[in-house]
């Protein structure tokens, strides 16, 4: 797989690479990747390979995107950028609860309390 001119990555999902570069560029959260099922180990290994390929740099604990990394984002943008603004914010379906009858007395389970 070719991400940027002259740089090859084996067994990497191109969309995940695009997402990771964007996360670095925007100093964002990696939840977007973990929600897709990407393991932390894979994120760490991909980040390390990006550093070795000079797409991103890591100095004194600070990670930032390089010019080469910005070029790669531009190359991939046409394919993966979400232009549909409705898809920018995803519904948090895992937090959705089923409708409770108005006469139902709700007693939370002790081990499900958040406090």
């Amino acid at each position, binding site marked *: 797989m070719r991400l940027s001119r002259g740089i090859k990555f084996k067994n990497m999902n191109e969309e995940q690479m695009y997402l990771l570069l964007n996360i670095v560029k925007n100093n964002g959260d990696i939840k977007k990747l973990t929600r897709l099922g990407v393991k*932390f*180990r894979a994120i760490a290994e991909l980040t390390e390979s990006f550093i070795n390929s000079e797409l991103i740099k890591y100095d004194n604990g600070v990670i930032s995107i390089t010019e080469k990394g910005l070029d790669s984002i531009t190359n991939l943008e046409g394919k993966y950028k979400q232009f549909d603004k409705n898809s920018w914010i995803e519904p948090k379906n895992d937090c959705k609860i089923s409708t409770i009858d108005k006469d139902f007395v709700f007693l939370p389970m002790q081990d499900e309390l958040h406090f």
Partner: protein
Amino acid sequence: MEIKKVLKLYSLFSDKKWNEIDGNKQVFENFCILTDNLSDEQIDLMFELTQRYKWFTLNDYNSKLTKILQDIFDNELENIDKLILFPIIKPEDEGKIKSGNAAIYMIRGIKPFVDKNNTVSIEEIIEFESLKEQNFTLNPNELIVLIDDYVGSGETLKATLVEVLKNRSITVDKIIVASIVIQQDTIDFLTDIGIKYYSTDTVIKEISQRYVSPELEEKVRIMKDIERMIPGGSHFSFGYEHSEALVTLIRTPDNTFPIFWKEHRKNGKKYNAPFQRY
């Protein structure tokens, strides 16, 4: 979670060569999830503790038990030609499969490859009943070796000693303790009562004996905050008997800080520990 935190943890795993250990991937995932659930000051303390954390694999057991057995053969065989191995175990745990039994089994396999192995015989005894005075008399050419892979607060060791010393033919000068890891406080106890010990790794209480005031109080406060996330954590606060250990062996001893081996809870959801025991 910020990517630099994942990278920092990944570098730590690489530096400690944990990436080469089978099963490390699950440990890494759970470490990252735990990190994601902690505040910045809690993460800093966990990184600090993890840098000093010892994770021993079965390969390590082989080399460490070989060294211990060689040291015993080199130092203890004057007028001794028989070692009687007994696991460090509480009387109430007799009959259960414990780490001391596993260590004895490994020594059985290691012995033929250790120098001077032909000059000494080894007998394994695993029941207190067999060591009782009516069933057993220790001869002058014999030595009792109490075995385990980890001796922490010394509670289990003391329980074993109390039982073993009920046999009047066994005296403290005829007992040695052999364990891969021994906590410093227990070494001091053994030295006080005149029992020799053999180990490859000595550990201390990793907060209370590592830091001095005011840093000490600060680290204690942060760890107490972390432990609030552990359901039932107060029973094992700072590890069993407040051992404050940072060790994983074949199994992680409960002497280790519980955040490393006990599940934690955040916003009502439970998460597995990096080195879960069950």
